C-alpha cells in the first residue's frame, strides 16, 4: 500500500484522504479512531466544558455509572462520550482490560491484587484506589498476564 503525506498550503484545513478499492476492517477501525480522537496513545476526554487530549498511559481505569463513562487519571476525572464496549474494542490490543460489567482497567496501573470473597479480586491501584475484578473476567486477566490457559 502506498502512503502519501503532504503538507497543506497555508490556511488550508488538515485532511486525510483514503483511496482504496475496498475498505477492510483494519482501515475502518483506523477511520473510527481518527474520527473519535481515540488512539493507542491519546484519547479525547471531557473535563467541565473543555475537551482534552489525554495520553492513554495516564488513564488508570474507566468506570461506567448511570449510563455515563468516566476515565480516571492520578489527579483527574474525565468523562468520555464513548460506551464502555467501544473503549474495550478500541484499546483491546493495549494494557487495558475489561474487569467487570462497568470497568476497564489499565493493568500497568495495578499495584497488587488481593482476594475478595467468592472468586472476586480487589485490584489496588497505584493511586491508592481499590476496584473489584469480577470472577468472570479473571481468566482473561490471567491470559493477558501470561498465566492463563
Amino acid at each position, binding site marked *: 500500500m502506498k502512503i502519501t503525506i503532504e503538507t497543506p498550503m497555508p490556511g488550508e484545513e488538515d485532511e486525510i484522504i483514503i483511496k482504496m478499492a475496498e475498505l477492510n476492517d483494519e482501515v475502518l477501525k483506523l477511520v473510527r479512531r481518527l474520527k473519535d480522537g481515540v488512539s493507542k496513545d491519546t484519547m479525547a476526554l471531557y473535563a467541565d466544558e473543555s475537551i482534552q487530549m489525554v495520553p492513554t498511559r495516564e488513564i488508570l481505569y474507566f468506570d461506567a455509572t448511570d449510563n455515563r463513562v468516566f476515565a480516571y487519571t492520578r489527579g483527574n476525572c474525565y468523562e468520555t462520550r464513548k460506551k464502555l464496549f467501544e473503549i474495550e474494542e478500541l484499546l483491546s490490543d493495549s494494557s487495558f482490560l475489561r474487569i*467487570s460489567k*462497568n470497568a476497564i482497567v489499565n*493493568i*500497568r496501573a*495495578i499495584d*497488587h*491484587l*488481593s*482476594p*475478595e*470473597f*467468592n*472468586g*472476586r*479480586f*480487589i485490584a489496588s491501584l497505584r493511586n491508592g484506589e*481499590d*476496584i*473489584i475484578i*469480577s*470472577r*468472570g473476567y*479473571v481468566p482473561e*486477566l*490471567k491470559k*493477558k*498476564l*501470561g*498465566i492463563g490457559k
Partner: protein
Amino acid sequence: MKTFFTDLLKWFVIINTAIMLVVWISIFRYDTIWVEIIPQIFCASLATSLVTTIVFSINPKKPMGVPVRILLGVGHYIVLCAIIMGLGSLFNWFELSLSGALTVAGSVAAVYFITALISYLLSKNEADEMTNALKNFNED
C-alpha cells in the same frame, strides 16, 4: 444461573467437608454413630450452602468497607446458626437447652472458620500468582 449452581456445588462440598470434620471430632464422645446422620448432614450442608451462595452472590461495585464486611459476616453466621438449630432440633442432634444452643453456635463457628480459611487460602494463592505475573508484565 449456571454460575449460581456452580457456586452452590462449590460451597456444598466445602461446607459438607467442614461439617463432616466437626462431626468426626464430636463422635469421639459416643460409642456408636447412627446411620441417618449422613443424609441429615447432606441436608444441613445443602441448606447452609444455599444461604452462603446467596450471601456471596452480592456483587458490589466498589470493595466493601471493614464494618460492612463484619456486619455481613455476623448476619450470615446468625442465619447459619438459626438453620442448624432448626434442623438440629428436627433431627435430635442436641437438647433444646442453653448448653445445646451454645454447642450449635460453637460448632457453626468452627465450620464457618474452617470454610472461610479454605476459601481465603485458595484465593490468596491465586492473587499472589497474579501479582507476581503483574510485576513481570510491567517489567516487559
